[in-house]
């Protein structure tokens, strides 16, 4: 879609020897529009445009391609660069049991992702344990227990106690059972909810997770930046997961979240089933954002 919009604008650039500020303006306006429609954060989009403009200016137009193609190439490369260049895998180093803790806003897909991750690790020969640490949402524990049954992965659960106690006892069980990866599902929470953020900070201190993954709904808009920044400031977030990417959202939140936290996007969730999990590939995602 961006390419179609650019075609007309970039036709004007043909026959011009150099990319100048004047002839690049329309192009950059078009790009900014595309990024905003794709839910890239306003400030992130503005900085991106500025950066790409600087890169493109004064570039001697090669004989082999049109100036327009050259600009698209710069934009595409810059997007891939900002998204992280290449896939960063899960960090499972250190003495087992390795802990992976999942955090994020309400309804972003954490519980579902916990099961996906457990299944993925089981396929890789690991012995995972799921921990149901959401004591607030009605039937949240039942949900994870049910999902665990479907994929034949044990779930540590206990009703009527605090998340800290659940996690402590889960780690004991993990050590007893020779579990090598513990996946902790936590309640959805607002980054501005002090009490809930303190709870998850306490869990971090208790568990020393190798990975804290921020699970974000792929359809999230401008708030992606505020939420991600806050979670990242308050916790040692090590990675990001974008969910519901089987929808038709362009997922500009990916660029916003990566830019503002600097943390790698590790996985994409693309469906409701446990097998709907993919590694994040910056190049593929750049195409999606540009439409």
């Amino acid at each position, binding site marked *: 879609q961006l390419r179609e919009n650019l075609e007309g604008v970039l036709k004007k650039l043909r026959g011009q020897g150099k990319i100048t500020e004047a002839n690049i303006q329309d192009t950059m306006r078009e790009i900014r*529009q595309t990024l*905003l*429609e*794709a*839910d890239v*954060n*306003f*400030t992130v989009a503005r900085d991106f445009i500025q950066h790409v403009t600087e890169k493109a200016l004064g570039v001697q137009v090669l004989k082999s391609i049109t100036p327009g193609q050259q600009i698209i190439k710069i934009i595409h490369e810059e997007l891939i660069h900002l998204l992280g260049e290449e896939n960063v895998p899960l960090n499972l180093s250190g003495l087992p049991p390795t802990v992976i803790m999942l955090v994020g*806003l*309400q*309804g*972003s*897909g954490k519980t579902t992702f916990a099961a996906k991750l457990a299944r993925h690790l089981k396929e890789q020969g690991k012995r995972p344990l799921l921990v149901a640490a959401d004591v*607030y*949402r*009605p*039937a*949240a524990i*039942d*949900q*994870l227990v*049910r*999902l665990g049954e*479907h994929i034949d992965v044990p779930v540590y659960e206990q009703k009527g106690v605090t998340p800290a106690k659940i996690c402590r006892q889960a780690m004991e069980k993990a050590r007893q059972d020779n579990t090598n990866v513990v996946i902790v599902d936590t309640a959805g929470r*607002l*980054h*501005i909810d002090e009490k809930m953020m303190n709870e998850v900070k306490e869990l971090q201190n208790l568990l020393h997770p190798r990975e804290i993954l921020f699970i974000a*709904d792929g*359809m*999230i*808009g*401008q*708030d*992606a930046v*505020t*939420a991600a920044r806050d979670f990242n400031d308050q916790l040692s977030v090590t990675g990001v997961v974008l969910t*519901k990417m*089987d*929808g*038709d*959202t*362009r997922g*500009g*939140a990916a660029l916003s979240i990566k830019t503002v936290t600097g943390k790698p996007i590790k996985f994409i969730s693309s469906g*409701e089933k446990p097998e709907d999990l993919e590694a994040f590939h910056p190049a593929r995602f750049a195409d999606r954002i540009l439409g």
Partner: protein
Amino acid sequence: FGKEIKINKNFLEQIEAFLYQSDFGITVTESLLRKIEEASRKLPITNYQDLSNILREEFRERFARNNPEIPIDSHKPFVLLVVGVNGSGKTTTLGKLAYFFAQQGKKSLIIAGDTYRAAAIEQLELWAQRAGADFIKNPDAKNPSGIIYEGVQKGLHDQTDLLLIDTAGRLHNKANLMEELRKIVRVIQKLIPDAPHESLLILDGTVGQNGIVQAREFGKILPLTGLVVTKLDGTAKGGVLTAIHEKMGLPVKFVGLGEKIDDLLPFDVDLYVDSLFG
């Protein structure tokens, strides 16, 4: 005088950023900026209070015909359906609605129309208990048609005030799931031809421009009668509700302001404008 203009330009840029970051999107932001610029020529805008006053006037105009009321006395039983994408807050909102109407002396039967997601029925059942509503479910159901039919039948028989129907989350680009939603509506209409009397799209308040696509696509499947925007107790402003209201004339009925049973507020445009600056 030149300096005055410069200050104004910088302030306009700040306003532009503020509007975009509230998820108003390109079309609404540009039209709001034009209105603000016009207003500032008559009376200079120097601070956010001035801006707030202008926006309040503008939004009052845009939402002048917004009616957040749900006419629950117009039919008995009154059939209300909630639809929307995964995780938007449908089940929680349905529980809140049952409680909201219970405060008005209305008795509800909640129908467990999400037959797919793990523990969806258990989650809704807990909400029904909290709201003091009756509840009907079929834990062995492989699809929603049967239990929804059964529930509506029971509601007719018992002459319940309200039938509140929960549905599974579904992405609007999944043709089979949208077809299932059409089927749900047909099943209801077999028993009550002019139902559902209220079809609410439940929109996650953090959603970006995809919210407009959601409204449009769900609107193609069934005649939506209202919008509920959830999770506005966070930092998201839910700006897409403006574009949806303008493009589709869809009334904004409620906002969700938390996870407790009474965290549901009928939409009030003044409160909404205030919340933009909150």
